[in-house]
């Protein structure tokens, strides 16, 4: 058991250093550095540029620069954002909670919709409910998140039920407590629903086939023969046994969800990581872009770890190292 955890941790460290290396490589490949603009100024002598290069270690060989940078990152120093005039880490910390809030709400919504629907839908395969849900999941897989978000804006504009733009309205930023919380939820509803509808399809199809498989197992037939009620059959037998594949793909799902969240944030002007990244790319704020990549990957890796832990709790087979 400890061996498995150690191997996983080692993999995690390897992948993390790989990500660090990749993002450093991208910064390095970009034409020029933060001194090139200064170098073009005729009033700054080449000597000063040379001194500053030494000061910031830009004259060192590539691998030494990478090691320096890695050391800085491990100390929580991700560089300085030239467009926001703030340390990158500070900017990231102000945006990550909002992206996490959006993503986690979407996960809860999509799982909350897909699982019960799949359990009920698959109990009558090819019935009207199953057919319409399958058709709907097809649509959900195929509609890109940015298009769905545009349709959401259209809905909000036509009905006026949802506010568009930002996470809080001007009036309620200062008011805390219940009113402020309600305002946040009101702003969150449409973006989270958009994101959840987009990931519903994959989850439904997966859960449906998993439920169908469990239903064909002898233990399920035995439970049915004992005359257990529908409710107990569904909750204790179908739901718990069919959940594993869903937990397993959670990691992959989360990657798509984070990318989707970025699109949704941009259309709904939700002030999260995605909007920050887009602005950083547009203004060539490289350190901020790379900080964003690091933060995004970290969220994804942590999500994967969480899924592994959940699987460990849910499925005794993984505990005995049969599949691990």
């Amino acid at each position: 058991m400890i061996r498995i955890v150690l191997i996983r941790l080692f993999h995690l460290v390897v992948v993390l250093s790989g990500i660090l290396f990749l993002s450093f490589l991208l910064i390095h490949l970009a034409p020029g550095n933060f001194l090139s603009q200064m170098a073009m100024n005729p009033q700054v002598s080449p000597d000063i540029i040379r001194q500053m290069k030494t000061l910031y270690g830009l004259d060192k060989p590539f691998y030494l620069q990478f090691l320096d940078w890695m050391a800085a990152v491990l100390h929580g120093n991700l560089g300085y954002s030239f467009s926001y005039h703030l340390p990158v880490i500070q900017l990231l910390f102000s945006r990550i909670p909002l992206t996490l809030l959006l993503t986690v709400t979407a996960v809860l919504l999509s799982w909350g919709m897909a699982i019960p629907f799949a359990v009920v839908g698959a109990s009558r395969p090819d019935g009207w409910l199953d057919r319409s849900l399958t058709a709907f999941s097809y649509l959900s897989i195929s509609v890109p998140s940015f298009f769905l978000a545009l349709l959401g804006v259209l809905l909000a504009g036509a009905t006026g039920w949802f506010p568009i733009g930002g996470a809080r309205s001007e009036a309620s930023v200062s008011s805390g407590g219940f009113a402020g919380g309600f305002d946040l939820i009101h702003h969150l509803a449409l973006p989270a629903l958009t994101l959840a509808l987009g990931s519903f399809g994959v989850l439904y199809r997966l859960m449906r086939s998993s439920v169908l498989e469990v239903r064909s197992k002898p233990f399920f037939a035995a439970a049915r023969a004992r005359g257990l009620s529908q409710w107990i059959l569904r909750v204790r037998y179908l739901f718990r046994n069919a959940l594993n594949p869903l937990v397993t793909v959670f990691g992959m799902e989360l990657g798509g969800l984070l990318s989707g969240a970025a699109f949704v944030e941009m259309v709904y002007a939700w002030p999260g990581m995605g909007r920050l990244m887009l602005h950083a790319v547009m203004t060539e704020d490289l350190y901020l872009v790379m900080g964003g990549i690091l933060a995004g990957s970290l969220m994804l890796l942590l999500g994967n770890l969480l899924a592994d832990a959940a699987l460990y709790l849910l499925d005794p087979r993984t505990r005995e190292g049969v599949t691990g």
Partner: protein
Amino acid sequence: MKGRTGKYFRRARLPLAILAIFFVSGLFAEFLAPYRYDSVRFDLSYMPPVWPSVHSGRLEVPVMSVSDPILHRFRQNSGQWVPVRFLCRGEGYRWMGVIRSRLHLFCVDSPGRLSILGLDVFGRDLWSRLLYGIRFSFLLSISAVSLSFLVGVLAGLVAGTGGGWIDQLIMRTGEVFMAIPSLYLLMGIRAVFPPGLSTTEVTLIMTGALAFVGWAGLARVVRGVARSLRQEEFVLAAQAVGVSWWGIWGRHILPNMSYYLLVALTISIPGFIVGEAGLSFLGLGVSEPHPSLGNILAESQSLPAMKAAPWLLLSGAVIVIIVVLFNLLGDRLREPDQNGNAG
């Protein structure tokens, strides 16, 4: 078509046929579109679709002019109709940038303006722009998929058959790529290049970036299949008589996984189409006036634009239709046939 491959394709002929129609219409965009993608009519901004009708015995369209430029209201100029001509000479173009021609499937003489699906803010014809956009999206996705397949298959083969440290190196590298949310990585790659590049440069960068992001998933699939095939007797036999790795890959391993590759190809194309559209939607892809499915949709990002010209959302619908068709194709290829033989 005969044999195994033919059977798979017969089963999937409906989505395949519709996709072929899309692709061919995109390919002949210049001919099927009455106008160039950048042909503007500033006086007809956001004109709604006006369909031709039979008028005095001929197919004609009314000449329109703006009556309220703020609310984008239009009225028919009384008594002014222009005939729709078929296989006519209109705006000159170079087909695929090479063959010079003026032939269009249909056109009308100015001051008339064909508006089958509506016009955008600059009075450019949406129908024409969609055709050009479909071509661009298809060609870019196909080249990005091919590139990512080349890299992915090669990496998967080397990892799967080579084993040992090289396997570890390739698979860990792949994991790094898969541990970064794809849009974040795409934006990171885009950030390396300065903004305001030419369309050709951006196209090349996008192709490269999409392939760069997409190869790892495929490499994993190929590696898995290659590892299991490696244990097969015919591979061991070929190895024993001294066939080179290239020979083993080309003769024994690739042909035996061709079906997996076909399915993997089909189900990965939608990701590339949506990826391209997404980047262009965010303004990181091809820029105006060149159309792609994504940047046409980006024109309707604001609520006023959506209200004035809801037809611009059609480009999103086109993306959805193409993606549905590819998913359907993938499912049809995968699912077992009536006799229960697994696909």
